[in-house]
């Protein structure tokens, strides 16, 4: 019965753009799909790459000893420039 139903069912259209007769519209749909897929991946990938680079830079930087009094007063995120 399931096989019979599969043959009798009409083709489903997910959205008007997929079935658009205009070539330009179909192309725009494909382009924007690629764009919206690649963009977040590129942003996250770029951020992770930058974080790793920055982390390595900080690892290489010499440690600075801070007097206890200064630590108590200002904390690690003081307003120094």
């Amino acid at each position, binding site marked *: 019965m399931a096989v019979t139903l599969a043959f009798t069912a009409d083709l489903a259209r997910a959205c008007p753009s997929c079935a658009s007769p205009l070539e330009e519209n179909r192309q*725009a749909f494909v382009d924007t799909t690629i764009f919206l897929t690649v*963009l977040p991946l590129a942003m996250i990938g770029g951020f992770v790459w930058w974080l790793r680079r*920055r982390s390595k830079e900080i690892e290489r*930087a010499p440690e*600075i*000893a*801070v*007097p206890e009094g200064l630590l108590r007063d200002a904390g690690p995120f003081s307003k120094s*420039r």
Partner: protein
Amino acid sequence: MADDALGRPYGVPARREPILPNGVLGMLIFVATEIMFFSGLISAFVIGKSNAIGGWPPPGQPRLPVEETALNTAALLASGVVLYFANRAFRKGSPSTKRLLAVSIALGGFFVVFQGAEWVALIREGLTLTSGQLGGFFYLIVGTHALHVLAGFIVLLYTYRRLSEGDLDRFTFWPAQIFWYFVVGVWPVLYWQVYL
């Protein structure tokens, strides 16, 4: 207290600069979501434009002021460049920071005012939110950007006030800059897509 071989007092923990300050990380995440939001709007516009029968812009609709907006675009880009120099001056502790920041804010204000004047003219010509696809997309996309410019303008004003009070630190200034660079950077893309 005795010092170790490197001259550090014993028992004092070393402090490193954070990889990324919290404010900057929060703003970067926010800007990333905003980029996706504007990308969605632009994608919808591109598909809508490609689906238009009779060409784009649709016949019978007012033409967008391309040349005038180019001038406005230049003002906004200049605002971003001046803000960059304001940051450089800030890092050096230069007194010109205040003047540069004021110029950047003024250019941003010029953009907002000019945009408002442009909208009034377009509404008078009959381009409204409900006049057609062009009007709908135009006010949605450009209006959303204008709201962001307004928000960025307020944030920059806040940083200017903090700077005037001698209370501005880089952990406040950086996120404000990131947001403004986003507002400035996304505009040429919108201009290219919507106006040209």
